[in-house]
């Protein structure tokens, strides 16, 4: 019984808490910050948290005559849909948040989607999950926006990447991916793209948690492909690239997600390491003042000397820039409450921050990215791509 | 003939625990099997109760072979055994033990209809009758004083008696008792004898294994002597006890046990 009283008390306290704050705009963030799948959510949280603190430290932002500050509510979903649903309900009902970033994980999105759809029009959900793509622009999903660019389509980076690969003279590629939600979509996306480009594609999927890839690599190498197409998180990339190069099975790599670090680590055994990266922070730090400033601010804010170069590119989704972009849109729309107007403003804004971000007609982000090409010995050439 | 044992042999690797033993038990009698420690008594009993398969030979229960049949089926057919070291359910009370043992009685009474008692506890009017019988058996075994105590809290004598009580609740036609008197004090043995006599009067057939010859001599109608796994004597208890082979077998070990 005591417990139930506790629950009631918690609910009441939350209700009272929301009544006072009027000049605060609440931003929810619904991401997994711990567990094996936390890389994306963790970085998203780091970036959003930083942006919000910066805006508040600068005195907030003005919409009309009023000055607003931001408040971040970012519980940890632990990749569990049950927790995520309760958290989203708490954000919308108790915290009265109208803007929610995330989720990046498809199972979490599926878990909150029915409730979110019921609340269509009351808030915006801006996440990177693969499953969001299919639902964009469908009825009753005006609340939905996708903050990561899509692989396929005219402005899809995957298409552009494969075109680049074709120019390198690739004839045969072997895909080795972790068996999870994104991979299933990735296979469906990339199979036709490769086919169209005239590159033969073999596919092997492995269970998450696999560390020793010698068997599948040997099996794939028997088909003598030019390029290995490994996916997609650093946790497995280090091991795949190391084991593929160490025994001389593969010398050429092609990546659409993941960082440069695994390639650099084995730079002397690799001929070509071609990767898509939202931003190559190591180089951009030298060439782009905004990036340099961001890195300095990050180090100061989190009191660390280690800037997460490998994970920072994930800030292209539901993260630092998107908070600023949302504030821009609120200013432009002249309201912090009218979700439809803010969405319209977001859709018509091109935000020029760490990235140039805009939304396409369905509400999916399109932003500029880097195609990186590392050659033997570690020389990297970066090409900035601005999709149409 | 209720039980017939034919040329029963059990070997464990090179060791022959029971060698070519044959005997029979008829309804209503008390048969005592005795022999010094290590003479194969418990193994023989386990073979008879179906707890382990024999290497050779047959055990016929009501003219049907029972070797290799699972213990619960053997028990259900009316052949029930107690353990030398009392086997109990540590967390339960004495009365609860007897209630668990009521399962066979309930099954005999209701068959599959006992599932109906899950919906209606009084279905088939079984529970009342069985509760009464449980109380009766607790009284019969002189356990009424400790009926609500946990098995972990009762004395060793009571533990052994509880084993007998549970076996009785199974309504056995033949009750196999494995050293019921071992470890008991004189008063407890007297008590046990009284209970077993009561049982005989109620028509239960008993087969008792023990190395306490005196105790068996007073109780048994017929005795079987066992040594090194083989039957060395059979007949009226006092005759068997005077049998020179039996005397040798016991004297070869320890005289004070006789």
């Amino acid at each position, binding site marked *: 019984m005591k417990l139930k009283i506790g629950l009631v008390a918690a609910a009441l306290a939350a209700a009272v808490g929301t009544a006072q704050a009027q000049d605060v705009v609440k931003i929810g963030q619904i991401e997994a910050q711990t567990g094996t799948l936390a890389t994306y959510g*963790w970085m998203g949280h780091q970036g959003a948290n930083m942006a919000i603190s910066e805006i508040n430290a600068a005195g907030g932002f003005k919409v009309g005559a009023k000055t607003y500050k931001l408040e971040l509510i970012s519980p940890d979903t632990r990749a569990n849909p049950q927790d995520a649903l309760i958290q989203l309900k708490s954000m919308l009902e108790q915290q009265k948040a109208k803007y929610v970033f995330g989720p990046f994980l498809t199972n979490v999105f599926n878990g909150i989607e029915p409730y979110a759809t019921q609340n269509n029009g009351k808030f915006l959900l801006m996440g990177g999950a693969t499953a969001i793509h299919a639902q964009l622009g469908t009825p009753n999903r005006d609340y939905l926006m996708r903050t990561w660019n899509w692989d396929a389509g005219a402005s899809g980076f995957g298409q552009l990447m494969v075109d680049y690969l074709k120019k390198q003279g690739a004839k045969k590629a072997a895909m080795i991916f972790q068996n999870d939600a994104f991979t299933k979509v990735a296979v469906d996306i990339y199979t036709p793209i490769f086919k169209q480009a005239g590159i033969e594609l073999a596919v092997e999927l492995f*269970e998450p948690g*696999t*560390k020793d890839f010698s*068997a*599948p690599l040997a099996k794939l190498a028997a088909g003598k492909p030019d390029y290995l197409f490994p996916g997609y998180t650093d946790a497995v990339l*280090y091991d795949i690239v190391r084991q593929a190069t160490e025994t001389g099975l593969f010398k050429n790599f092609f990546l659409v997600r993941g960082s440069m670090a695994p390639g650099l680590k084995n730079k002397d055994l690799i001929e070509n390491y071609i990767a898509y990266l939202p931003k190559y922070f190591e180089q951009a730090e030298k060439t782009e003042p905004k990036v340099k400033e961001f890195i300095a601010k990050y180090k100061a804010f989190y009191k660390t000397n280690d800037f997460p170069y490998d994970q920072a590119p994930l800030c292209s989704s539901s993260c630092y820039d998107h908070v600023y972009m949302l504030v821009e849109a609120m200013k432009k729309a002249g309201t912090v409450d009218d979700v439809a107007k803010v969405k319209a403003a977001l859709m018509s804004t091109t935000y020029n921050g760490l990235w140039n971000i805009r939304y396409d007609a369905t509400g999916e982000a399109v932003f500029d990215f880097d195609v990186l090409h590392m050659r033997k010995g570690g020389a990297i050439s970066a090409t900035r791509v601005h999709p149409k | 003939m209720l039980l017939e044992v034919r040329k029963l042999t059990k070997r464990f690797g090179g060791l022959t625990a029971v060698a070519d033993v044959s005997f029979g038990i008829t309804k209503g009698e008390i048969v005592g099997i005795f022999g010094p420690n290590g003479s194969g008594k418990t193994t023989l009993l386990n073979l008879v109760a179906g707890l382990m398969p024999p290497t050779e030979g047959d055990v016929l229960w009501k003219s049907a072979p029972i070797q290799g049949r699972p213990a619960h089926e053997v028990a259900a057919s009316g052949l029930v055994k107690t353990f030398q070291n009392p086997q109990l359910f540590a967390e339960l009370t004495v009365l609860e033990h007897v209630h668990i043992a009521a399962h066979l009685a309930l099954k005999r009474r209701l068959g599959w209809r006992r599932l109906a008692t899950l919906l209606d506890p009084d279905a088939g009017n079984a529970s009342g009758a069985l509760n009464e019988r449980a109380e009766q058996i607790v009284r019969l075994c002189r356990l009424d004083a400790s009926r609500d105590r946990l098995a972990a809290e009762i004395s060793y004598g009571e533990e052994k008696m509880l084993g007998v009580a549970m076996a009785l609740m199974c309504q056995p036609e033949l009750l196999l008792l494995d050293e019921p008197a071992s470890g008991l004090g004189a008063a407890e043995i007297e008590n046990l004898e009284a209970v077993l006599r009561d049982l005989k009067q109620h028509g239960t057939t008993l087969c008792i294994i023990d190395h306490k010859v005196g105790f068996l001599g007073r109780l048994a109608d017929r005795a079987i002597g066992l040594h090194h796994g083989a039957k060395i004597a059979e007949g009226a208890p006092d005759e068997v006890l005077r049998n020179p082979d039996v005397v040798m077998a016991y004297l070869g070990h320890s005289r004070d046990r006789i």
Partner: protein
Amino acid sequence: MGQLILGQLLNGAILGTLYGIIALGVTLTFGITGIVNFALGVFMMLGAYAAWYFTDVAGLPYPLAVPCAVAATALAGLVADQALFRFTRNNLVNGLLVSIGMIAVMESVALLIFTSTPKEMHRVLPGVIEVAGFVLPKMKVAVFGLLLTVILATYAALTRTWIGRAAYAYAQNPEAAALMGVRTERLQTGVVVYSTALAGLGGALYASLYSLEPTLGSLFVLKAVEAAILAGIGSVLGSLFGGVILGITEGVGSIYLPLAFRDVYGLVFLVAILLFKPAGLFAGRK
């Protein structure tokens, strides 16, 4: 194809010794304390990060970093044993749950300290060995040799020394061993700590082959438990063979059958063993 299979047999055997060293810890702990200690995965993780820290951050040479990492893990094992495991002796379920609680705590601590960015140690022994057409990384061969030595040494110690025989006697019959003067508490603590040290060694060597993340141990320990059961829990050499069999099954299985089902192959094999040879493959060879 034959070349492919033989290559995987070799690689599976090497990977199998890594399963085997953790399985040995599982087997020893189970034999002496009656607990299946899933938290050994945590100690493996500790050993791995410690080895990485001592080499890549503190700058020690790897051959020195490994014993340091093992010592650090054993110390952590001693603390955990005195604070937690001591209270779960011979209680399988509680032991299991305490180890799960411990995994949650330690993985979070590791996440706080090391973040989720994978750590990859600099190459200790780069290059490959080519024998009869098979290409094997030198480090893998070195790890294989080292683990094999440790497992065999443990076996020798258990069969040849007084402490080992005491432990054996205790596993067979705790009461008799206690009567014979075996100091139960000390023996149990000793074995638990030794098992964590083995896990730490496994982790420290793992660090030279694979990238590190906080969850590495809990994934690995499941395989080790599989290997331990496969051989028959309680068998020292069996845990080595169990690991090797598991490694080979997975490696060769992934060539002929879909890779996505890899984890199933080991499990199906395990179930078959448990059903038809419940004491394990190497029962009776203790």
